[in-house]
């Protein structure tokens, strides 16, 4: 039986810079995962609908607008409302390090800034997904 890791890569908010999101999507693809990529300017509702319908193991949010402290809680809340509180969320982009603890307290499992290697993201996704399977 073949169980593929399925990851949703989404860009909430209004910034139009999707290079980072595409880079991560491509890296996860090359690591053998199935990556659902939804494009720019996703609302929390759209992200939740995609996560639910696609039954993903993880959601990765890419935010470069600086609005992460507003957007991330909304996405997490929306996921929870839909019964998807158990789906691990990671955030990447331009996130000042002083915001990392607050994001993690909200329930974000990993935060990635510039300079993160794609291998690190791949390893974390694998680890977090296998942790979910055991839980």
């Amino acid at each position: 039986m073949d169980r593929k890791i399925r990851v949703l890569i989404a860009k909430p908010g209004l910034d139009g810079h999707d290079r980072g999101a595409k880079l991560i999507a491509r890296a996860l693809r090359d690591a053998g995962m199935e990556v659902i990529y939804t494009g720019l300017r996703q609302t929390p509702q759209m992200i939740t609908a995609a996560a639910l319908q696609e039954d993903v193991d993880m959601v990765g949010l890419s935010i470069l607008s600086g609005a992460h402290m507003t957007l991330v809680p909304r996405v997490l809340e929306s996921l929870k409302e839909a019964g998807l509180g158990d789906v691990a969320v990671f955030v990447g982009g331009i996130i000042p390090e002083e915001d990392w603890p607050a994001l993690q307290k909200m329930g974000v499992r990993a935060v990635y800034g510039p300079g993160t290697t794609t291998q690190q993201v791949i390893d974390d996704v694998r680890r977090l997904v296998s942790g979910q399977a055991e839980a």
Partner: protein
Amino acid sequence: MRDTVDVQAVLAGDRRALARALTEVENDSPAGREALDALFPHSGKAHLVGVTGSPGTGKSSLVNQMTRLLRNPEEGEAKKVAIVAVDPSSPFTGGAILGDRIRMRDIADDPGVFIRSMASRGHLGGIARMTSALVRVLDAAGFDLILIETVGAGQSEVDIARLAHTTIVVEAPGMGDDIQAIKAGILEIADILVVNKADHSLADNTLRALSASLEFARPGQISAIDRFHHKELAFAPVKLDQTTNESKNEHWTPPVLKTISTEGVGIEKVVEAIEKHATFLRTHNQWHIRDAARLQEELNELLMAAFAAKWRKQVDQRKIEAVLGEMLARKLSPQSAALKLLSA
């Protein structure tokens, strides 16, 4: 909870349960097989519509626009629409980028729409091996119309015609001359032809070439069973009564329609054609012929896989190695090697 399927919840319209069921079925897990068995009697109601065509012709945008219209019809009731969108898996890593949702923003959070992306997972032919099984789950879950978008397909990815009641082939202007239009393959399977990007200067040329090629065709004379590419089944198919259709000599002629799907132009004609085709299939005894042909085709494939699995278990590995050796040394042709192995 992973690895379990709540069939009653799926039938009751629970979207989370449906998503989980689709995962288990796609992975062909024991829970997935069990769910398929339980859901099968509830399937067979939805209109299955395939959308195929070369990469970049605008399949996803067209699906987005058609779904919008089906959800907000000018008259009549809105249909519940499910979409299965297939994208290719990497032949090297098995990974995939599933990006069809990008073009489906307008319908992304409509509660009457369910979109599922699917990787081809090594299957050729334009859809995945488990696409028909996923479609069956969505059918049982009560969707009225299921749109199946294939991977960007070229000339011979024609599996979709076996799965769908209605096949839409999407073409874009400027892709080849009129000989392309009379080649065998993907154009033959079209019940509806769409020339998308109709604001392109070459759109009318494409339209003419396609319309002309249809004049050579003998639409409708190809019966459902024959549509399946003269494939030999492992068993004799059930004889279906096709006389009503043939005696009337009424054939479906595929319409050739122009759209600009990014702007929503021409979409109502396509939706109208989908409905007309469904009516045609029903009134000409074709609906159930296609259903029966599809099920028998599917049984055939499963049977072949089962035969192979059974044979693998009982065949002597040393015999295989010996025959392989002879073949690789070019002493034995692959044809004779196959026969020799079977007689082992």
